[in-house]
């Protein structure tokens, strides 16, 4: 087998001490950056980019690959421990991960998250190694209508997660979609909803919104709950996980991995969308959906597996076509171009060693991640013993730095702080903030795909339904929406006429907090 011989060469390259040291340091850096609230792995990769120019290309790519793999996981550490997603992709990990921590099961939650992530990442890296060319041609079949359908599926998933409060989730999501339209439009470059503020022409970035909504409210609560000393976060070790425990969530991990691998190939969607869709599918599929949000292991394992499963497949379009689908892969493209490497089909023949070393590095990174992540998670658990006031102060500083670092723009800091205040009140009134963040992420994509599709197909709306792949995805979305809404709609239909408290969701006080955040 040609591929195996190449891969053996790749492993030799990746395990070369010099490369290996950079791979491991990238991995550690990624996990730490991901875990710090406010600082995302995209920040870390952008920051590391200038350093990679000084390294040989193979080492540079191992280093960035390490940050990518580690960073996509790292965000979950703060999601699970303090309910603040370290990166947008770790948003769904808050929903069942943090409740586990509150039950005193933090290390169990971390172990499950790490194993699921590593499994997803490994499967995805294997797919990258053995399936890159066919997967690449599959990705090329996707045109704008297909991307549009995929984003619709993502949006539908958001509503599907919130079974008990579909109205609030829908409102939150539409607010997010609306926020996503601020700035210049994708076709004419015309500023919209800027209300005369020039800074708004660049739009409102989703990372900034997420940092604001999640970090600031949580930190304010940190010093205000239980009048007096503030609350210290419980990090009881909890029961350790054995292999048998992991075996129980195997189908969740597998479902998450499958979804993540597929979604990773779609440009623009990436880890966050993968994790959200995986969570909502899992909620329907695993049979314990009604208890999701209370610390279900399935609800943690599936999105964890999915988000890391996007890492390997996201590199397929990058390496085979030279097309980056996400901010992280765009940075990798920059690193390759600066080194004079042109990703594309030629890369596989002209730089076989490099390509297979990248593959091998991705495989190794996902294996090593288990060790690295455990180590960092332990350090972070210890950090949680720091008095909440001190912890909170630095989380806010990091959030501000992180919001600033997205585009090196002070205006983003103001946006972040404004959303911090909004988020605080949303939290107090049980208004779900997560659909809003997903809306801000998917809104601009959705609009762009929609308008470009129409421009490309003579303004014909039917194109979304008549193209086989996009039609199928849209049909699936509709079925999915109906399926997940059924439990909420059913009682309304069967409401006995003289029982006022039964079917009306508003009469049930207070609404259950579904999207724990």
């Amino acid at each position, binding site marked *: 087998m040609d591929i195996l011989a190449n891969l053996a060469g790749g492993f030799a390259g990746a395990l070369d001490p010099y490369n290996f040291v950079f791979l491991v340091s990238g991995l550690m850096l990624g996990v730490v950056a991901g875990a710090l609230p406010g600082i995302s792995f995209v920040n870390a990769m952008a920051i590391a980019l*200038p350093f990679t120019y000084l390294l040989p290309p193979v080492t540079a790519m191992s280093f960035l690959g390490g940050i990518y793999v580690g960073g996509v996981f790292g965000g979950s550490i703060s999601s699970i421990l303090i309910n603040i997603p370290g990166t947008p992709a770790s948003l769904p990990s808050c929903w069942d991960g943090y409740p586990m921590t509150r039950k005193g099961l933090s290390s169990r939650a971390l172990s499950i998250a790490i194993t699921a992530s590593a499994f997803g990442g490994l499967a995805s890296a294997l797919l990258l190694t053995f399936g890159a060319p066919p997967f690449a041609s599959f990705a090329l079949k996707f045109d704008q209508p297909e991307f549009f359908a995929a984003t619709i599926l993502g949006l539908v998933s958001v509503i599907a997660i919130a079974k008990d409060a579909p109205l609030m989730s829908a409102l939150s999501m539409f607010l997010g979609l609306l926020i996503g339209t601020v700035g210049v439009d994708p076709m004419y470059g015309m500023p919209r909803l800027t209300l005369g503020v020039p800074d708004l022409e660049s739009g409102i970035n989703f990372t900034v919104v997420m940092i604001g909504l999640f970090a600031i409210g949580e930190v304010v609560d940190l010093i205000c709950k239980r009048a007096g000393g503030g609350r210290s976060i419980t990090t009881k070790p909890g029961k350790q996980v054995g292999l048998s425990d992991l075996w129980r969530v195997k189908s969740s991990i597998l479902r998450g991995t499958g979804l993540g691998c597929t979604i990773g190939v779609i440009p623009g969607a990436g880890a966050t969308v993968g994790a959200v869709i995986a969570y909502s599918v899992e909620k329907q599929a695993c049979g314990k959906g009604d208890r999701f949000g209370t610390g279900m292991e399935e609800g943690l394992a599936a999105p964890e597996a999915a988000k890391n499963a996007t890492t390997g497949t996201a590199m397929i379009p990058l390496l085979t076509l030279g097309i980056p689908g996400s901010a992280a892969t765009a940075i990798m493209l920059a690193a390759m171009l600066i080194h004079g490497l042109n990703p594309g089909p030629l890369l596989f023949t002209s730089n076989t060693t490099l390509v297979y070393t990248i593959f091998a590095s991705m495989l190794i990174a996902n294996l090593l991640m288990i060790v690295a992540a455990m180590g960092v998670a332990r350090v972070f658990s210890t950090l949680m013993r720091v008095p909440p*006031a001190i912890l909170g102060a630095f989380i806010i*500083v990091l959030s501000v730095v992180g919001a600033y670092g997205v585009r090196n723009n002070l205006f983003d800091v103001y946006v972040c702080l404004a959303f911090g205040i909004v988020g605080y009140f949303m939290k107090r009134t049980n208004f779900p903030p997560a659909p809003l963040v997903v809306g801000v992420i998917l809104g601009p994509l959705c609009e762009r795909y929609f308008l470009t599709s129409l421009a490309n197909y003579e303004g014909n709306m039917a194109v979304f339904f008549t193209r086989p792949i996009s039609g199928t995805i849209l049909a699936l979305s509709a079925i999915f929406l109906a399926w997940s809404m059924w439990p909420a709609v059913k009682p309304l239909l069967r409401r006995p006429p003289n029982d006022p408290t039964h079917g009306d969701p*508003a009469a049930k006080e207070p609404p259950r907090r579904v999207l724990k955040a």
Partner: protein
Amino acid sequence: MTPLSHGLRRLATPAALLAGSLLLSQHIVRDSTMIASLPDPIGPAGWPRLMLGAVGLCALIWIGRELLALRRAVDQQKPIDEEYEGYAHGRAMIGLGLVVLYGLALPQLGFPVATAAFVALWCLIGGIRRPLTLALVTGIGCVVLLYVFVLLAQMPLNRGQGVFDGFTVALYRLLGIY
């Protein structure tokens, strides 16, 4: 609080959302004549208008639901969230105010000074009262932040205006960052 006034208060948010979306739909683009001249039926304003409509519709349903609930206001109770028992509301407001002040102070005082002041004040309202702890946390924390983000990550964080700019540059020189 009477159930009625409570119910009215609950109406305020959706009503504000509805009014806001109606108002914004008139101000999507600076100059609507530019849109009118485009033959494109959707154009730059189409998608935002759709989203505003969706937000407005959701708000309308919300209002409807609240009105229904208001009719049955007899058994309406103020929701009690056990999570917020003994919650220091005043302190939360001070905290939020401080966060905003920090943001506003950043361009004026520069990152190092504003951050040091913010960390110290935040720890103070959070109940850390020992001067030594305060000084150490602020001092070491800020120096570490500066080394990581200004020296290593080379982020162009604000240096402040006027005398603070000079101070920040001098501080960076002292720390060996510049």
